[in-house]
């Protein structure tokens, strides 16, 4: 791999690392979501520095070009991230539903909190 390509790839990987760590430090990203991105940055650095490994992986999966192998794994990574987000969104949807229902029932049980009792008993 040409030196210029190596420098660009390592620079991108280090930038990802710094951005992710900064987001976690500022509590804008939770640790549980950061590991997949940090893993990606690590893989990128390893494959850039250890080009022979990239060639072996390319041969292993039957790809012709190392760039194809990289794109293949990038797509796999994005799919994993999407699945992880879908699972989390499903859980959050359940939690929002439960909380919304509980608030509605508590307000009905305590009319002073939500004034939701019948105003006309007849």
């Amino acid at each position: 791999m040409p030196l210029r390509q190596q420098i660009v790839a390592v620079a991108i990987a280090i930038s990802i690392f710094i951005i992710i760590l900064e987001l976690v430090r500022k509590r804008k990203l939770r640790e549980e979501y950061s590991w997949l991105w940090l893993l990606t940055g690590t893989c990128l650095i390893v494959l850039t520095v250890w080009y022979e490994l990239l060639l072996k992986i390319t041969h292993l999966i039957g790809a012709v070009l190392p760039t194809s192998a990289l794109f293949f794994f990038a797509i796999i990574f994005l799919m994993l991230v999407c699945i992880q987000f879908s699972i989390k969104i499903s859980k959050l949807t359940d939690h929002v539903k439960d909380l919304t229902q509980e608030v509605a029932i508590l307000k009905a049980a305590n009319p002073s909190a939500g004034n939701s009792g019948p105003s006309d008993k007849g």
Partner: protein
Amino acid sequence: MASDTLVIIPAYNEERNISDLIHSIKQLYPSIDIAVIDDGSSDATARLAQGAGAWVLSHRFNMGYGVSLQTGYKYAVAKDYQCLVQIDGDGQHDPADIGALLAVVKDNGTDLVLGSRFLQQNDYRTSIFRLIGIHVFRVILKLLSGQEIKDVTTGFQAMNRKVLDVFVSDVFPYDYPDADVILLLSGLGYRIKEVPVLMHPNEEGKSMHRNPLNALYYIFKMILSMFLTKMRKY
């Protein structure tokens, strides 16, 4: 709580119908309690329902028909009601049929009673696509459970406490509870029966679970949900 029966009305922007519906139910069944689940309406649904003499459970956001139903189920269980009737807030269902549904639940040992629009002649009209959908779900239900139900998508239902205890749990499919719920109860050994009811056309066509934009997703989800319900162990 004087009555052991609760009528729940899921409602989303139903200010034109809600008062009349509540007054009709109170006139026909004065001893039955009524709870309106206002699903984040932007109109006066909640205020009118409260003024008409119903308990109002308000969702902060629009959560959908199934979540509204489950809120009603949870409220019924929290208040220890033994029977529940669910009726749509758009005026399609005739409150006069509530008694027929309840009679079967209370006297006949049936766990879930479905108000069917296909067991007698009435002026109910719907789109050909919906009729095809109902027929497909009916066939799948028959194949998967052996249960022969004519109106698998009816929202007019009555149930006892045993069914309520199932519906307040996580197994309740709250996005579109229809034929998959019948399959679920059938698999658990609950007794289900249909009763003929009068159903009016939905003149405004804006009932919260009949949004045509969701039709394709609804059909896909229901077929998937029915097969997954059959595959799960409860």
